[in-house]
């Protein structure tokens, strides 16, 4: 479908008439009816989704493969557990499916008590062993400090990158081929390109750290193009978005977790980490003019899990309690080792695009050229169809 561009420039005042996305996203476009591009894109995307029977068939195939891979091993897959809804629900599903997952919790020094309590309850009730990947806090702090100094939008890259790196590393260590992830399109399909950055761009990460970091990074689990190629092509490790293969309804999932696992709701999306809460609820809106709730709520509208009115009402509320924001700010500053003046300066420093620090684009292009050439050769000599 072709999208008519609105005659009006996108301003934050213009709100999509179907979702709650608005002009605070510089890339948003509206059609003549004031409907944003995301709504149209989602309709096109939704049309490609498999129906219930096809999803079930895919799930059955996947579970059979996971069980087969786990034969004779102490575990059959890896699950990263943060204590939030998505990963907690995946863990619950794994029990229903009779899987034997290696449950990995990633400790980057920002856990809050609720997350820790949820993890404890889940492991206790489901009788799963817990494995914790403890980040070296000194190195991780140095990397987070570098992202603050770089003044780029996605200060969560270090966490997201290293979680994935840790999961692949552990899958390889235990010789497992499947990572079950909580990523899903029902709640996480929509994210404006300028509101976050490519999580696996190790070139960008290293360059930001080289420019602003102070300590060598030796212990963090990197996951750039080559590491991923190694894990995925050589070791055959796949990350599977299992929530896309079931009916994932966030509100229902929460109810179930509360009922079955004594799970405690912590409020906003990804607020299980104090850092994420402060980043999404304070830094993004104040420094970057980004309120991620608009994308999260719009996503729920698109997948039929919230109404637009509910979303608009929710957006009237502050991102979170103002007094708590101030407490979090003091804590984040202290933990990262910034003085008050330094931190205030970082919060008003001009924002920069990630790309100015370099990207892994060339690596990726080279990688795909090699893959393409290798494929051609194999086809020529008849080893591959």
């Amino acid at each position, binding site marked *: 479908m072709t999208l008519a561009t609105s005659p009006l420039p996108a301003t934050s005042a213009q709100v999509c008439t179907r979702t709650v996305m608005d002009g605070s996203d510089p890339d948003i476009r509206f059609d003549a009816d004031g409907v944003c591009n995301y709504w149209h894109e989602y309709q096109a995307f939704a049309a490609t989704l498999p129906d219930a029977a096809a999803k079930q068939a895919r799930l059955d195939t996947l579970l059979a493969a996971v069980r087969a891979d786990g034969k004779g091993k102490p575990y059959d897959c890896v699950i990263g557990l943060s204590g939030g809804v998505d990963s907690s629900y995946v863990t619950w599903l794994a029990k229903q499916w009779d899987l034997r997952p290696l449950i990995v919790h990633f400790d980057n020094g920002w856990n809050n008590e609720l997350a820790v309590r949820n993890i404890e309850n889940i492991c206790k009730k489901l009788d799963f062993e817990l*494995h914790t990947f403890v980040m070296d806090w000194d190195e991780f702090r140095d990397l987070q400090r570098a992202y603050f100094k770089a003044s780029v939008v996605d200060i969560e890259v270090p966490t997201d990158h290293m979680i994935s790196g840790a999961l692949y590393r552990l899958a390889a260590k235990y010789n497992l081929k499947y990572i079950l992830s909580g990523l899903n399109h029902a709640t996480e399909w929509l994210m404006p390109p300028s509101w976050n950055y490519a999580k696996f761009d190790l070139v960008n990460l290293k360059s930001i750290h080289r420019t602003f970091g102070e300590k060598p990074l030796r212990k963090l689990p990197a996951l750039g193009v080559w590491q991923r190629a190694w894990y995925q092509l050589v070791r055959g490790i796949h990350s599977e978005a299992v929530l896309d293969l079931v009916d994932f309804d966030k509100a229902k999932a929460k109810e179930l977790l509360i009922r079955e696992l004594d799970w405690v709701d912590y409020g906003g999306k990804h607020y299980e980490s104090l850092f994420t809460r402060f980043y999404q609820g304070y830094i993004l809106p104040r420094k970057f003019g980004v309120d991620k709730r608009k994308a999260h709520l719009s996503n729920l509208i698109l997948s039929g899990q919230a109404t637009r009115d509910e979303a608009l009402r929710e957006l009237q509320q502050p991102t979170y309690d103002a007094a708590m924001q101030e407490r979090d700010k003091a804590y984040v500053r202290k933990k990262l080792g910034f003085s008050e003046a330094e931190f205030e300066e970082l919060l008003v420093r001009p924002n920069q695009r990630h790309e100015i620090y370099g990207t892994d684009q060339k690596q990726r292009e080279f990688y795909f050229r090699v893959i393409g050439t290798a494929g051609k050769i194999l086809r020529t000599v008849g080893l591959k169809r």
Partner: protein
Amino acid sequence: MRRIRVIPVLTIDRDARLVKTVGFGKRTYIGDPINAVRIFNTKMVDEILLLDIDASTDGRGPNFDAIGDIVEEAFLPMGYGGGIRSVDDAARLFALGLEKVVLSTEAFADPGLVTAIADRFGSQAVAVSLPYGRKLIGGEQVLTRSGKQRTGQAPVAAAQAMAAAGAGEIIVYSIDRDGKWTGFDLPTVSAVAAAVAIPVVACGGAAGLDDFLPAIRDGGASAVAASSLFVYRAPKQGVLISYPDEADLRDRLFAKLDA
């Protein structure tokens, strides 16, 4: 209903990194102490003990900056031990917000330090930790400097001497059981508790809530302390801060003390 203190012990190394030892030997890095204390604080624990296990061996004083950052997260009584060599050191620690100092190596080198701190701040503010191990032949002895230096003193005699010097509390810390999840060393806890009139804290080996009751009821301890139990999900499992909730403590510990 009688309540007793159930105390998480956190150990930090020379770089103020949170570590957990087994038998005072092999160390595992388990994260950032600031966040750990913050979580314990939210869980409303009775009291926390923070021990710098490298200070005496390194021959240096407490890392005041790091301790200050950690103590700031605790709105609960907190004790600190490691490298305290003078009344001034203790004064600085109290100024940071600590309720109690824990002496060990220096208390044996100079019992007068215990007296001096007790005289100035009260004996409730000074505890003495008695890390002890089994001797090759016969009995046990207190081993200071993170278990590296023999004192030649048995725990009971040492406890009596420290109580006489003015200590307000004795921590009976079994090195052999540290990090092993085998339960407290009840005979030694009982012997020390019977020998002194001041509170005795049992430490080293707790594997679960069920180990606490015998230490109090049969061992005569007034409080129990543990570390692995509160920083690991279970033996051989991942790092996860935990603490029994009030109902658990009430039903499985306090209520039984009355019975």
